[in-house]
């Protein structure tokens, strides 16, 4: 301490000597530099705490960050899957979502229509799901159950589910449950009884079939009716999204088991809690929770499109939902209209043979682009017949001034713009994907 105190009173020359003595750089001591040099000298005199104090915090922070990551992964085990599931959601949901429709349809159609399986390349998954639904007697009934009452035991959830199903009121808190109760009220009640009897035992498919026939009939009725239901389901999406996060917690380890071998599951605590806390029986409802969630989602979409499609046949609507759920919201549905618009185009091409093939192609591309942009702007309404009218209208209006060269050039410019829009859209999609991937990598790895 005496040395340190002496430093202030030392002259510049002495200070410099001290500095050289203690290995500090030989720097002329001036009034301006004196202060920091004294500081340095003190630091070195007191065992160079300054240099240590510089370095240690950095290391500590690094350590802390690592530790905090681990602790965060432990503590935020609930929160992380929340983020992960939505980020992954696009791919997973599409894959699992379409098959659940298929699975439900398969069940509903009592395996008379095996044709309906997997309209888009998700046949493998759909078979898995259908197997799941067959394996699990609960899936039809309890698909909603785990979403709502995942934290309970299976018995509790099933009992609660039973009660609610018997009530079968619209006030059921969760959309999936509501949907199922609405769609399959009769079958569900009976399912409950069968459920209690055989939780693990696989039921006879014939029983299922009977119930599912009824269910299919009722779903047909329901798909035609319900605008109000759509609103209900939409309102329930928030609830379902909240509960989805829970499913994420529960199902991550399970999803790894059967569906996603490649998906990394770094959160060991989750698995621990699962394997420790839950019996094996619970896994089935978890699967069903998974499927139920997806089916909810896809059903939601289906209802949206179904409402907009009005009385179109179910196959068509289902395809539209599939394209929807694949995430190609704007580009996928376009082919439908392109086909129709192409037909119209061809008709008109016969009417106007004087146009060159190049002009025809331009028109076609342009009409496609118009329909694309229209659908993209109209969002979910693309499947509505109004969109078709719009595209036709655009075709006609775009076609009239075809004779003028100026307008043609202008049209080319429009085409270029349309292409540009497409490019932008894809760019946006790509950037969103990249950002998501980046976040995913940064946050979870």
């Amino acid at each position, binding site marked *: 301490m005496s040395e340190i105190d002496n430093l202030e009173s030392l002259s510049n020359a002495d200070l410099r000597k001290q500095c050289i003595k203690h290995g500090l*750089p*030989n*720097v*002329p001591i*001036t*009034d*301006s*530099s004196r*202060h*920091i*040099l004294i*500081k*340095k000298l003190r630091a070195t005199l007191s065992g160079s705490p300054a240099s240590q104090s510089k370095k240690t915090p950095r290391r500590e922070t690094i350590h802390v960050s690592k530790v905090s990551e681990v602790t965060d992964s432990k503590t935020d085990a609930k929160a992380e899957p929340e983020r992960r599931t939505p980020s992954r959601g696009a791919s997973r949901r599409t894959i699992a979502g379409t098959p659940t429709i298929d699975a439900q349809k398969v069940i509903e159609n009592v395996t008379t229509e095996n044709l309906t399986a997997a309209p888009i390349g998700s046949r493998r998954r759909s078979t898995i799901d259908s197997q799941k639904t067959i394996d699990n007697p609960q899936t039809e009934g309890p698909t909603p159950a785990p979403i709502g009452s995942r934290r309970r035991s299976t018995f509790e959830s099933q009992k609660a589910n039973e009660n609610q199903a018997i009530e079968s009121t619209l006030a059921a808190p969760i959309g999936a449950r509501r949907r199922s109760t609405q769609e399959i009220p009769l079958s569900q009640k009976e399912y409950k009884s069968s459920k209690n009897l055989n939780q693990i035992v696989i039921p006879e498919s014939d029983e299922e079939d009977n119930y599912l026939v009824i269910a299919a009939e009722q779903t047909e009725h329901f798909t035609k009716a319900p605008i109000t239901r759509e609103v209900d389901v939409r309102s329930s999406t928030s609830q379902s999204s909240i509960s989805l996060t829970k499913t994420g917690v529960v199902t991550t380890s399970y999803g790894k088991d059967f569906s996603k071998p490649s998906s990394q599951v770094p959160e060991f605590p989750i698995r621990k809690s699962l394997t420790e806390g839950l019996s094996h029986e619970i896994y089935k409802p978890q699967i069903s929770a998974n499927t139920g969630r997806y089916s909810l989602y896809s059903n939601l979409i289906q209802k949206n499109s179904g409402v907009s499609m009005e009385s179109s046949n179910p196959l068509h609507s289902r395809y539209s939902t599939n394209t929807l759920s694949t995430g190609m919201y704007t580009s996928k549905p376009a082919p439908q209209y392109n086909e129709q618009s192409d037909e119209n185009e061809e008709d008109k091409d016969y009417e106007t043979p004087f146009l060159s093939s190049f002009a025809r192609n331009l028109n076609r591309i342009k009409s496609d682009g118009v329909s694309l942009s229209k659908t993209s702007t109209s969002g979910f309404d693309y499947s509505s017949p109004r969109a078709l009218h719009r595209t036709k209208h655009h075709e006609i209006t775009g076609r009239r001034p075809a004779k003028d060269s100026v307008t043609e050039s202008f049209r080319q410019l429009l085409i270029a713009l349309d292409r540009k829009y497409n490019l932008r859209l894809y760019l946006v999609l790509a950037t969103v994907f990249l950002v998501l991937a980046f976040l995913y990598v940064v946050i979870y790895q």
Partner: protein
Amino acid sequence: MAGTSQKYRNFVAEPMGDKDVTELAGIGETLGGRLTEAGFDKVRGVARGTNFLNNKYVNVYCVNVFQAYTVLGQYLILKKDEELFKDWMKDVCNASSKQASDCYNCLNDWCEEFL
């Protein structure tokens, strides 16, 4: 150098002459003010920061301006030692690490260019 600022490039591009401290990279108004306050005796008590608005003499700041070359002098006195200079910056005007290193890089590259 990755990500050099416009200020850095402006400063390094030419001899510094009588430039203000605030033209050094990493030193803004705040640090410039602190340097001026800390400012020893080597300050010019001349109004430098004058604003002309509509050809009118609006504000005449009688500012003691800490010249950039005084910082350069300090930098040279510390024998271009990076650590010492940064510590000096932090000590004199409470500069952050980034500000200090920006200023150091600025002066260092200017010296490589013009000294």
